[in-house]
Each structure stands twice: as C-alpha cells, then as structure tokens.
C-alpha cells in the first residue's frame, strides 16, 4: 500500500524538485563576519551564558586553531574560507519569545510552508489524527497521541518550542540549549562535552567554539516521554554557517524518541552546517534518534548546496541501555556524518539504520561506529545507499570490540544500489575484534536495479519512474520501517523526488 502512495506522491511533484528552496525575507541581526575570539565572546554574551561556558568555548576555539581539516573522507570540495562566514544570524526580535503569540508571523508562515505548524492544537502534516489507526501499525502497538513537540531553530536561534508545559508535567525538560544553559546549568555542565569533547575533531571543535543553539532534552528516571520530540532546523541567512548543538539525556529507565528535520533555501553559494549531537543513555534507558536530512543539495552542476559536516555520538553509559540512530540522507551537497554508539554499559545495544540517497553531483560519505566496551553488548547496522546521476556514495564504518567486551555481537549489512553508469558506490568498513568471544558478521552488496524487475513492473503498466520508485522503496524497506510514523510518508515521497530524472 505504501508503495502505491509513493507513486501517487511522486506524480504530484512539480518540476521544481527542491520545494524547500524558498527564502524568508526577514530582517536579521548578524555578528561581524569572520571568526576570532571576539566572535566567540559575542555569541556567548548574546546567549547570557554562565562564565564556565565561555571558558569552554574559548578552549575549543584555541584547540581548533591548532587542528587540520580532515581530508580522509571520499569527498571533494573547494577549501572553505572560515573567515568569510557569518557565525551568528538571528531574526530580529527573536531573543526570547515567551509564547507563540510573540513569534514573528513571518517565521510561523515559513514553518507552516515547510509543513511544520507551530501551533499546539495542530499536528505535523502527514501525521494521522489522534486515535486514527494505520495498517502499518504493529500488532498491539501503542501509538496514542499523534502529538509532536517541536523546537524550531531558525539560523542561529531557537524561535519557539511547543508543548513545553505539557512535557513539564511529565518532568521532561525540552528547550533550546541556550535556555538550558540559563535554567539548568548544572545538568548541562555535567553532560555537555562528555560524549563529544571540545577537541574531538576539527568540526566538533569549531562547533564547540561557536555553537549558537540547538535542543536540550532531559528525561527523568522511569519516564516514558509522552510525545515525540522534534527539532526543525532551517538555514535562511546568506553566507551563514549553522552550528547547532543537541544534548539528550535519558535518565535511568526512561525512553525518548527524537526527530530531526532540516531544510535550507536554494542559494548559489555553498553553506556550512557543522552540528554536534550528544546522546547519553543511563541504566535501562532508551533513545531513538531519527533524522530526515534534506538540506539544499545544490543544482545539477553541483553549484551551491549545503556542506553537512556533523558529529553525532551516543553513549550507552548504563547497563541495558539502548541507542538507535535512524537517518534518511537525501539532501546536502556534501555529507560527512558518522552517528556512533559507545557501548559502555553491560548488555547495552546500539543500532544504526540508514538510507543515503545521492543524485546530481552530491557526495555522501556516511556510516557509523559501534564501539563495544562492555560485556554482552550488541549492535546492528543496516545501511542502504543509492547512488544516481554523477554522485558518489560511500559507506564508511567501524565495528570494534575491546578486549574486555566479552560476547560482543554485531551484524552489519550494507547494500548499495547504482542507478546509471556515471555514479559511484563505495563501501569502506573497518572491523576490529580484540576478543575471540566477539562475534562479528559483515556483509555488503552492490548491484543495480535488474532489467527483469523493471520489465516486470513496466509490463504491469507502471511507468519507468513509478517502477524505479517502487523497487527502491522495496530496497530501503528494512530501514523505512524503523522510522517513526511522522517521517515515513515524508520519506517515501522524498525518495521519489530525489531520484526523479535519474532513469532514462
């Protein structure tokens, strides 16, 4: 059924493929161009941060100055001039809106256009109404509210966070990280940089120095977060880098599902996005993190587009904790992203489900790291890469077991699908077993859509594009099923759009 919907959706798409490419004409406030200690102080000052945070930022900035840009990824792009960027851009008057009524209507309009209504009585587009049943539901699964709390980040600031009051009733803290730094400094101080330290890598250090906003989530012990949490990132201002930082802490026995969406306007110049996400799961806690990344991919000749250089890492700190990453990567000119799990707690579990689609001149170098440190830890990696046009799509991943990670278990499957003879699909897995009790299995395949499959579908009356969408949706099905309902419909549609024009 889902496939038929996809085909219908693909049909509806107009010629302009990237439909989120509009710009919002809004007056913004910028920090001076370039990067130096003054800019770091400026950002920290704008956010009214505690002094220790400024110190941490400066420390990161100093480390960054001594680091070299990584060049090992299979991507090729002109050198970034870090002095030619704005590191802070905020819509005027967005400093601290208390409620939705105070938010600039232009911003609300932008988000409505993106399908993200920021009014609490409404729910996300594509999401079914309260109590509505879907045949995709698992037998007996509980999916009640259909409500999604949204933290909307526009350029460098969080403009609004919805459903805060309702979440607070359950004890869940969901706010922008700037607000968390002011309201819950002890929590932030304890966990920030504990998974991705300031000097972790080049872009993480840059992010630590200049990060402007992002989301903060704290789920108290034993609480199952009553609704899906989500952040919607929108880059609007020209020549501006977006550096957000997300910190999610699931305390003992809690559960949270978090969604992330991103879009940016069509611009001729490339834009830099260097985010850091830190997840911490304590004893028996579970975090499910899903991303649909749809930054502007650049035009057919590879002009413009977002450079997405992201560090995402989860720490399964407590026994029996679980972190699951699901990502759908369709946008960005260049992607450099490896959501990882550190499996520290005994019997902890890490999962990574990924769909990476590249078309045109896009370059994707993405994958995961599963680092087994504790006893009886397990991990699972399912990665589906689809390359079309003249793009390059690389899976790069590491599975390692420490000597003390007795009975570590991993299963990895990386499949690549090539559409057209001008694209490239690559697999670069690293496997390191330092104990004989670890059982690692890895398999990878690369192939194209077989002529037989196409012939069969087309003989049943499907057009070429419908047939491709159908087959590709089947190819990525294992991962699609991991996505929360909110994203499933959108993703199926996206797959169709991303591959439009790739055949024939």
């Amino acid at each position, binding site marked *: 059924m889902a496939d038929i919907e996809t085909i219908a959706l693909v049909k509806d798409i107009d010629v302009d493929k990237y439909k989120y490419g509009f710009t919002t004409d809004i007056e913004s406030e910028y920090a001076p161009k370039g990067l130096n200690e003054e800019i770091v102080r400026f950002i920290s000052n704008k956010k009214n941060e505690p002094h220790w945070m400024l110190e941490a930022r400066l420390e990161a900035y100093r480390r960054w100055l001594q680091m070299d840009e990584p060049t090992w990824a299979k991507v090729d792009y002109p050198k970034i001039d870090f002095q030619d960027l704005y590191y802070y851009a905020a819509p005027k008057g967005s400093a601290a809106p208390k409620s939705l009524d105070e938010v600039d209507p232009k911003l609300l309009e932008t988000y409505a256009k993106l399908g993200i209504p920021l009014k609490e009585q409404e729910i996300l587009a594509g999401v079914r109404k309260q109590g509505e049943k879907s045949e995709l539901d698992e037998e007996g699964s509980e999916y009640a509210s259909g409500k999604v709390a949204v933290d909307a980040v526009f350029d460098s600031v969080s403009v609004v966070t919805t459903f805060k009051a309702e979440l607070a009733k359950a004890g869940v803290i969901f706010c922008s990280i700037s607000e968390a730094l002011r309201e819950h400094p002890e929590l932030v101080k304890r966990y920030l940089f504990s998974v991705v330290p300031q000097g972790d890598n080049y872009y993480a250090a840059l992010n630590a120095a200049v990060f402007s906003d992002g989301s903060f989530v704290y789920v108290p012990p034993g609480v199952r977060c009553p609704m899906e949490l989500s952040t919607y990132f929108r880059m609007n201002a020209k020549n501006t880098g977006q550096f957000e930082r997300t910190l999610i802490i699931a305390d003992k026995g809690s559960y949270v599902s978090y969604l992330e969406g991103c879009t940016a306007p069509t611009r001729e110049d490339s834009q830099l996005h260097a985010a850091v996400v830190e997840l911490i799961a304590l004893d028996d806690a579970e975090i499910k993190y899903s991303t649909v990344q749809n930054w502007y991919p650049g035009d057919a000749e590879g002009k413009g587009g977002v450079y997405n250089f992201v560090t995402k890492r989860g720490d399964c700190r407590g026994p029996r904790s679980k972190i699951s990453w699901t990502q759908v990567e369709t946008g960005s000119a260049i992607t450099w992203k490896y959501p990882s799990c550190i499996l520290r707690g005994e019997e902890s579990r890490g999962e990574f489900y990924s769909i990476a689609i590249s078309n045109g001149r896009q370059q994707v170098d993405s994958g995961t790291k599963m680092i087994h440190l504790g006893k009886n830890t397990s991990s699972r990696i399912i990665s589906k890469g689809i390359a079309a046009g003249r793009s390059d799509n690389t899976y790069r991943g590491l599975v390692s077991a420490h000597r003390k990670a007795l009975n570590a278990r991993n299963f990895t499957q990386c499949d690549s699908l090539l559409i057209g003879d001008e*694209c490239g699909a690559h697999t670069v897995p690293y*496997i*390191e077993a330092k104990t004989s*009790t670890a059982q690692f299995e890895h*398999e*990878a*395949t*690369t192939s194209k859509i077989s002529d037989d499959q196409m012939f069969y579908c087309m003989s049943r009356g499907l057009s070429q594009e419908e047939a491709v969408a159908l087959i590709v949706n089947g190819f990525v099905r294992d991962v699609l099923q991991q996505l929360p309902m909110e994203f499933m419909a959108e993703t199926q549609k996206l797959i169709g759009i991303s591959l439009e024009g790739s055949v024939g």
Partner: protein
Amino acid sequence: MNAAIARTAAEEALGFHLPNRRMEEWRWTDLRQLIDKPYPPRQKVEAKGGDVERLLASSPFAGVAATRMVFVNGEYDAKHSKQSNAFVESTAALDDPVNLMNVAFATDGARLRIEGNVDTPIEFVFISTDASPRTVATRNVIEIADDASATIIETHLGEGSYLANSVTEIRIGHNARLDRVKVELESHDAVHLAHAHVIVDRNAAFRDFTLTAGAKLNRQNGTFRFIGEFADAKVSGAYLLAGKQHADTRLVVGHEVANCASRELFKCVMDGHARGIFQGKVIVRPGAQKTDGKQSSHALLLSETAEFDAKPELEIYADDVACGHGATSGDLNHDHVFYLKSRGIPEAEAKALLIAAFVGEAFDTVHHDGIRAALEDFAARWLTERRRKG
C-alpha cells in the same frame, strides 16, 4: 613520509623511511614500531654445511614431484636447482614501500617464461640460513605466454633473524592459465614483506593461494589487474598463526575492463596473542560492466587474546555489476563442539576437526592434488603441535 622525523635504528640501517600507521594502508601494521632492530641490506652470507639440505627437507612440498629453483640467502643456487633462469624483464612500476625497498636491494630472483602446457609444478624455494640479522630481497618475474599453462609454488623457509623482501611480478597472456601456491614458513624471528603484482589478460584464468604460518611479522600485498575481458581470478589464503605472530594481507583487485570475475576467500586462524589482518579492496573502474566480484574473509580466534582486523572495501564506478563482500570473526561454535563430543569425540580432537574444516575450505581452491594434500598435512601437523603445546 615526512623526512623531518628522526629515523629509527632500523630505518638508519636500511636507509629508508618505513611505513607507519599514519598511512591508511598501514594503519594496523606500523613497520616503524614493529621493526625494532636493524636489518642492514646487501650482506653477503654463505650458508653453513647442511643448512640448505635440512631446510629443503623441511619444505611441505619436499615429497611433491616438482622442477625446483633454489635461492639461498638471495642468490641462485645451481647445485640444488633443476631449472635455470630465463631472461624476462621486470616491467611493473609500483610506488608501494615494499616494492621500493625491493628495487633497491634485490640481488636475484626467479625469471621464467612459460610456453605451452607445463604439467610438472615448478617450485621456487627461498632459503635464508641462520646468520647475522640482514635484509634479503628477491624479485621474481613470471610470464605465461598466450595459451600456455603452469603451476608454480613459492616456498619461503628460513632460520635465524632476517628481513625477507619478496616481490613477484606475473603477466598472464590470452587464454593462459596459472595456478600459484605460496607458502610462507619463514623463521619465527623473521620479518616477511611481500608484494605480488599480477596482470591478467583476456580469457585467462589465475588461481592464487597463500598459506601464512611463519615469520613473527608478515605483510603481503597483492595487486591484481584485469586488462582483458572474460578473465577470471580466484585469490585465496589461510593463516595459521600462534604466539605473537602478526600477519597483514592487503589485496587490491582492479577490474579495468568488462566481463571479468574475481573471487577472494581468506580463512584466518589465530591462537595465542596472534594478530591477523585482512584488507581487501575491489575497484570497478568506469566501463567495467558485468563485473562479478565477491570477497570474503573469515577469522577464527582460538584464544581470548588473539585479534583480528578487517577492512573489506568496495569502490565501484559501474552500475551493471554484482559485487559483494562478507567478513566474520568469532571463536569456535560451541554447539558444533558439543555435537561432536556427544558422539564420543574428545574435546581436543573435536576442536581440531572443526579448525581443519574451517581452513580446509581455502585449501580446496588449490587444483593440484599433491600440493593440496601437502597443505592439508601441514595444517594437521600445525594443529597437533598446537594441542601438544596447549
């Protein structure tokens, strides 16, 4: 390699910078650290009486009828050889560090051109006798003419402490066939660095098997290039490692033309503190449509302190291909051991049976019955030895 870094004693003796872990291809085998004593090159060493005969007799292929070419301490030994060198020119230009070292230090090596069908296997035996630590380098060039076929064995034996550098260049012509078997049984105090560079032409068939059981430090590179369509290559290998042995194999299979098939199968057994590494890369160049490339590496870790690292890579620029790889790592399946025990087979024997079956799959790729039997015998002896010690 950065010239500004101070040379280690080993580098000083060689006059070369050694590859280190900052180089991606050497991330798990840092020669700068692992080669900790000097092995000066070009040291002429005479074998002591009886050494050569004793080592020759220890070869697993001593009983296999073969035409032998023997090289002692890097020099051709006419007394023990039945086949003499032909004139075949070396043509491969590789910028790999192992090859650069070989070009600088090679003293001799087998040069062979095969025409027609040669039924008797040809064995190259490389012997290093016990003497002061030194570098021994040999370079072999083998050309299989169009429509010709042959079986070649490369046996590396030795005693004492030395660094052996062995590069083999192979060119296989149209419709030709080559079966190559290499056995590395260097001294347990030796370093073995090797590179095999193979070019496979149209319709040719190449089979390659490498058994790695000797040397304390071993690094073997292989580059296999398809330059004519409809050719087929099967590259396999087995590791039997114990103690503190370290073995690293890096293969690059380049599909440059359409319609070729490649298979790689590696079975690695590691005991004690041994560390086994397998890095395999399949590159499908633009236009190499209908490529069929499969690669698998499997590790069996017999002790908790053994280690296995793998990097099976695919780099693909053509769409109509079927490529894949698989890699596994683990210890013996307890259910299998239990099953055999429940049938009255003692535990040690049950384990030996399972290990033999595990590596046996790689031996099965060897065509020549006598050679395969010799390999199986060797593995059986290795297992008995292991049981006696453990």
